[in-house]
């Protein structure tokens, strides 16, 4: 059978046990280095800029993101309001910066959580055939549900809000990571150095923890960088559908959703939030790209 998930990750080709394995000693160093130049650096800068904007949102704009000033509905950008005001007379800049904060927060919690969950389940799957059968089928079920429908149903059950968005991302992320890690473990497990650890009498747990897992993480790392942009997208899609971050809390998706109604008469409304979403996604993508390249060379 084909290892679907293995091919899921373009940036991590099945490392031929030869030269690639020989070279992966430098992985950490190389990964770090790949982010200090070229596209990797550009990605880091983009993400960092948005992070800083989110972090220092209160300094960048004096407005509160939920504060409504009666009578200043849909003002164009200008003095007082950097990006203008929205349909509820709130400062768009404040909403975008604080929204970036929310979106990043979602990504920063959901992606690692989904990754860890995926790794745990993926590992579990490799221990017993029965566990494998069950987890694989469960993964199938989750992957077979269109993610959006999963999101809608979850949001309806749990009510919209940040925790729901996080849950949806975790639930859809975990199977992908799980598959990825599973196929990696199955591969790494057969590599000579793992056998050589078994031959010296190392117990199974030791081998798994010390050898198999660390050597299986590389493609996961690359995937995770991509998953961040996926998370940003998921958040905005859910907020767009009204099942995302709970109003009036700002989120990028929410601001975009608000702005689309006015795209023709107040086009500037949409510009700032879109720019931030694109910057984040492009940034994370460039990072993933750089990491992937570093993993390959």
């Amino acid at each position: 059978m084909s290892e679907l998930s293995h091919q899921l990750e373009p940036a991590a080709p099945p490392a031929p046990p030869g030269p690639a394995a020989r070279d992966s000693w430098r992985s950490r160093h190389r990964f770090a280095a790949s982010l200090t130049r070229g596209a990797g650096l550009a990605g880091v800068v983009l993400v960092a800029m948005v992070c800083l904007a989110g972090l220092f949102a209160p300094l960048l704009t004096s407005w509160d993101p939920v504060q409504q000033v009666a009578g200043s509905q849909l003002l164009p950008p200008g003095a007082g309001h950097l990006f203008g005001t929205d349909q509820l007379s709130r400062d768009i800049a404040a909403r975008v910066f604080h929204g970036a904060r929310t979106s990043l927060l979602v990504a920063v919690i959901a992606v690692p959580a989904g990754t860890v969950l995926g790794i745990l389940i993926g590992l579990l799957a490799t221990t017993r055939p029965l566990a494998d059968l069950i987890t694989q089928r469960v993964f199938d079920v989750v992957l077979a549900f269109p993610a959006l429908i999963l999101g809608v149903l979850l949001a309806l059950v749990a009510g919209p809000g940040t925790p729901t968005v996080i849950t949806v991302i975790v639930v859809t992320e975990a199977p992908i990571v799980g598959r990825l890690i599973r196929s990696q473990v199955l591969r790494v497990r057969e590599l000579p150095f793992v056998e050589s650890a078994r031959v010296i009498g190392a117990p199974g747990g030791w081998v798994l923890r010390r050898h198999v897992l660390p050597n299986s993480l590389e493609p996961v790392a690359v995937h995770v960088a991509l998953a961040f942009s996926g998370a940003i997208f998921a958040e905005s899609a859910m907020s767009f559908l009204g099942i995302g971050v709970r109003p009036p809390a700002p989120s990028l998706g929410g601001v975009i959703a608000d702005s689309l109604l006015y795209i023709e008469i107040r086009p500037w409304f949409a510009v700032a939030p879109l720019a931030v979403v694109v910057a984040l996604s492009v940034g994370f993508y460039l990072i993933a790209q750089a990491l992937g390249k570093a993993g390959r060379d």
Partner: protein
Amino acid sequence: MTDTDASLLRIENLAVSFGTRSDRARAVDGIDLDVAPGEIVALVGESGSGKSLTARAVLGLLPDGARAEGSIVLAGTQVVGADERTLNRLRGGVAAMVFQEPQTALNPVQTIGRQLIEALRLRPGFDKATARDRAVELLRTVEIPDPERRLDWYPHQLSGGQKQRVVIALALSGRPRLIIADEPTTALDVTVQAGILDLLRRLRDETGTAILLITHNLGVVADLADRVVVLRDGNVVEEAGVAELFRTPQASYTKELLAAVPRLSTTDSREAGTPAEDRVVDLEGVSVVHPGRGRAPAFTALEGVSLQLRAGEVLGLVGESGSGKTTIGRVALAVTPPTSGTVRLLGRDPRTLRRAELRALRRDLALVPQDPAASLDPLWTIDDCVAEPLVVHGAGDRARIRRRVAELLDAVHLPAAAGRRRPGELSGGQRQRAALARALALSPRLVVADEPTSALDVSVQSRILELFTQLRAEFGFAALFISHDLAVVSEIADRVALLESGRIVETGPARTVFGSPAQDYTRTLVAAVPVPDPAIQRRRHSPSEKETP
């Protein structure tokens, strides 16, 4: 033969470099080389000396990021800096290439017929039918039996030797005047290798094709080449006719290289180890059958193998690829359980042991793997790798372990600084030493060395073998030494066992077996080993003595 005016290929001051403008590394640094029509020139040198890059530069096939400078004139056309169109005219038609790995040199999802026909149709004057006829003819030339039928086969249905022949047929498809063969036989068994070398020789003799042969096997060089160019660190250190080079090497590096070549010693009178009473390994009628999976039928890897190994003894295991050498090693390490027969390791049957007892037994067993690069965890430091057996078996506190690791590294002549590096930061020879140190950490009573030097070039190989002998004297372990290189085994083993498709066909003291083989199979094997002496090889090829593998 070195008539420069008539040269087919002339390389002058070729340099190949990698990296950005500011950070350039020169892998090939000013090579001069000529190949005349009909000549076989061998390019030798240790790993990484720039042989492959030189060859690829000739066809303008350097890897991404590489840059060639200097001049390469192939049949009157300058290759360096030529555009893809010009290069494509030269490729295949003037010069063709045969690569090292027959397993991957063919497209796995196309029939060999299709690949041949596609290559032929790049040439003018071939339509589908004529190309097919020519493909059959080519396969016949390279001695593929039943070529009409084989056209529709996929690469995976052919043996390694056959695949290499198909690759050669592809190379011949454009009737090139020069064939560049980059280690064409390294991945093959000696018997198969002999066949391929034969084929190349015949090609030259019959069609006058020149051959640029790249190899680090001096036996092969002696067998085939007219002239030898020795490379080191991207430079030519010596160039001479083959007989001359072997007789009177000039450069010190050439001498070193020649000295390091293991020779099949049939008159060796090394003393056998002191055999003690207890048997370290005792296999009785062991068979290993791999159950079939899917449509693949069950496969018998070992059949009725009986084998004893006494303490302190070195038993060499030889045989062709797939004959079951590694499987015996795995049985002796209690990794693969036998399907039938009995196994006793250090007097105990591993199958009857509980988990903890088995782990205790493993303290006394160790593996020196074939490819240490793959056998040491790439993320661990050498210190940690060597310490791992000690830690796993709780052999003392941190400080003691650290001291023991230092001793071990010292024993294998590794500098202490190497311990802090990761496997990837060591050279192949150093890595192999680290693997040895790791194997010896717990003072095992049995070491299984599975082709421990096949990934190394000869000079490094000889140093490792020396070290191995020395350590055995010091630690007194018994060893199962697996190799397909008869010469290596003959140098190191007390006794040898010869395997053919899962059965032991001959055992005995090394010199007896190699000196006066009792079995046909053994004789074939011994005869196929190319001797690094052109004179002997020439004699062997005289028609009266020619062997057909």
